[in-house]
């Protein structure tokens, strides 16, 4: 008996002020592929994103295999079976290279393979080491599609693959190759849920799910036979450790130098203001000196976490969250900045470096930046996240700074 890969159990989903669908039920077994069909605005992407755990559901439950992954009380669990995801947006930061992004995708299932034959099929092999920001729209879409399919090909066991408009923006050859790979994945026992308004994609799937009637129907025999797949070259895989949010964040911080251009500049400006004050050490108390020495570290943290805003690019952070890849952050680097600038401020104001103060500066900048990152991410579901004023909470983040100064000065 085929294994159930996806169970959507009587879910209700709202978006904005609309109820997109009510009592939606859908089951997909190993080896099946279902095309979501319906006009624009019927809820194809909404259902797919709900299945990926990216949307809140009002009623019902979504299970991947036997494991509930989305519940109406807001509880979400990392999916043990989600082996690939392509969103309508590409899910990749422009500062990643093609190879890095595909390896990150494969790390979600803990295996990797040689990328060369896959990239050749999509005519991307010469772009392997290029930044995604430097690709054309079509090329970037090809990378997003590969990132949705490759993890399933290298996964040790069959799973679920979710693809939103996978062939939109691709040339004819790449579209045919994508459909062929989809068929091959079904043959390997994976289940595919695909949203598309293109007939060729619908024809390539074993089932259709009509968003108007909420009925799953078996499709006519498929028109596209799985043929030209790299499986003929055999997919040899090797273990690959899952890339943590810290590793990813560190790589992106170094690549973009966001830690220096945001956190570093804030600390530098604060230090500059302190230097303008001149030799004030003799005129102020010990606790006031300490407060000034720690001020650059506090400023470094108060400007927030650059990864929180960079992660909005092409919904990169959503894509990572759905695949259980963790939240990208650069906390260790911001802590290092806090330590460095505390040491510099100590030299400038007291002529010495106190290791306790330096450690406190590192912790202060890390904690404050982390808190700002939480605030920045708390509005990611809003329609206009850039239009809300999370900066209003910034003044109160001076509290840990003031308490730390008070505690150290005793």
């Amino acid at each position, binding site marked *: 008996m085929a294994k159930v890969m996806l169970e959507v159990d009587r879910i209700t989903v709202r978006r904005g002020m609309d109820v997109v669908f009510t009592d939606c039920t859908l089951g997909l077994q190993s080896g099946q592929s279902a095309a979501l069909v319906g006009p624009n605005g019927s809820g194809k992407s909404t259902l797919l994103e709900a299945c990926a755990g990216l949307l809140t559901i009002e009623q019902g439950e979504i299970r991947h295999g036997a494991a509930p992954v989305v519940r109406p009380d807001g509880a979400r669990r990392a999916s043990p079976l989600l082996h690939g995801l392509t969103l309508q947006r590409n899910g990749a930061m422009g500062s990643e290279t093609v190879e890095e992004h595909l390896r990150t995708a494969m790390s979600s299932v803990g295996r990797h393979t040689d990328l060369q034959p896959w990239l050749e099929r999509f005519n991307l092999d010469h772009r392997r080491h290029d930044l995604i920001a430097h690709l054309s729209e079509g090329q970037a879409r090809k990378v997003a599609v590969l990132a949705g399919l490759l993890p399933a090909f290298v996964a040790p066991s069959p799973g679920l693959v979710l693809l939103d408009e996978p062939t939109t923006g691709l040339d004819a050859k790449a579209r045919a190759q994508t459909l062929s790979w989809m068929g091959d994945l079904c043959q390997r026992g994976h289940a595919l849920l695909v949203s598309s308004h293109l007939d060729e994609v619908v024809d390539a799937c074993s089932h259709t799910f009509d968003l108007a009637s909420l009925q799953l129907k078996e499709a006519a025999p498929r028109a596209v036979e799985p043929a030209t797949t790299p499986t003929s070259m055999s997919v040899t895989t090797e273990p690959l450790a899952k890339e943590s949010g810290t590793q990813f964040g560190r790589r992106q911080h170094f690549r973009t130098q966001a830690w220096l251009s945001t956190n570093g500049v804030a600390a530098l400006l604060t230090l500059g203001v302190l230097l303008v004050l001149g030799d004030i050490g003799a005129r102020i108390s010990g606790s006031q000196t300490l407060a000034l020495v720690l001020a650059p570290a506090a400023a470094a943290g108060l400007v927030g976490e650059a990864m929180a805003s960079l992660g909005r690019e092409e919904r990169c952070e959503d894509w990572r969250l759905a695949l259980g890849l963790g939240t990208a952050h650069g906390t260790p680097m911001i802590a290092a900045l806090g330590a460095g600038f505390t040491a510099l401020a100590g030299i400038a104001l007291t002529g010495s470096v106190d290791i306790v103060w330096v450690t406190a500066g590192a912790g202060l900048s890390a904690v404050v930046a982390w808190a700002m990152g939480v605030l920045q991410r708390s509005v990611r579901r809003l329609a206009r996240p850039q239009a809300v004023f999370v900066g209003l909470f910034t003044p*109160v983040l001076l509290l840990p*700074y*003031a308490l730390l100064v008070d505690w150290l000065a005793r």
Partner: protein
Amino acid sequence: MTTTFKKVGPPQLTMKVRVGEALLLTGFLGITGTLLLALLWAPSVSLEAFESPAAQRIFYWHVPAAWAAFIAFGALFVGSAGWLFKRSERMWRLHVAGAEAGLATGLITVWSGCVWGAAEWGTPWDWSDVRLNTFGLLTLLAVYLVLGRASQPDGIETRDTFAGFGLYGFVLVPFTYIATRIWAIRHPGPVVATGEEGSINGDMGLVLLVGAVSFTVLIVGHLLTSMLITNSEQRLLHLQRRMDGGER
């Protein structure tokens, strides 16, 4: 083709509107009376105990406003929880009303506290004082919710996000209340519900009571009126969407 418009008169005042407005007016008169009593009748505090005894009179607005802010933030919490767990439109209206009332009373509390702090401590704010900062955070939360709601289209994502913040804010209410018991740095300790006999003089207590009752009446009137305004906004939105043909 001629389009005819139905002549629409002014909306009929419902009983609820009248109650809300009556409470608002009564509360406003009450807090004005409290201010007059505080300035003209209430006894002065000990000249030895305070740097600036005259400034202490602001306490008759400061403490009742803080009390009313806690009621408003309580309403915000109930409304937020009611929206998140029951998806109740009425509870969302309570959330909106609680945020607006919390903003009004929070600003009065913070402003009056800053005036008093400047006179008594020599500084309007102390970043190391936990109660000041947690109350400041509560007020900023209210500013955030009121401005944030104005900047976003109404929808489940907007409501869930802001209701989440509303729940978080309520955690700060008991925290703020006990802050001066745990970290007694600068802010004076509680003057009511301390369990100590004679914590404040009888006449002072009377003015404070008038202030507390007045601010409570004002805030209840504010909550009722604000909920009715939000209800009207929602009805208007509903009608607009029906005319757009987009209602599902």
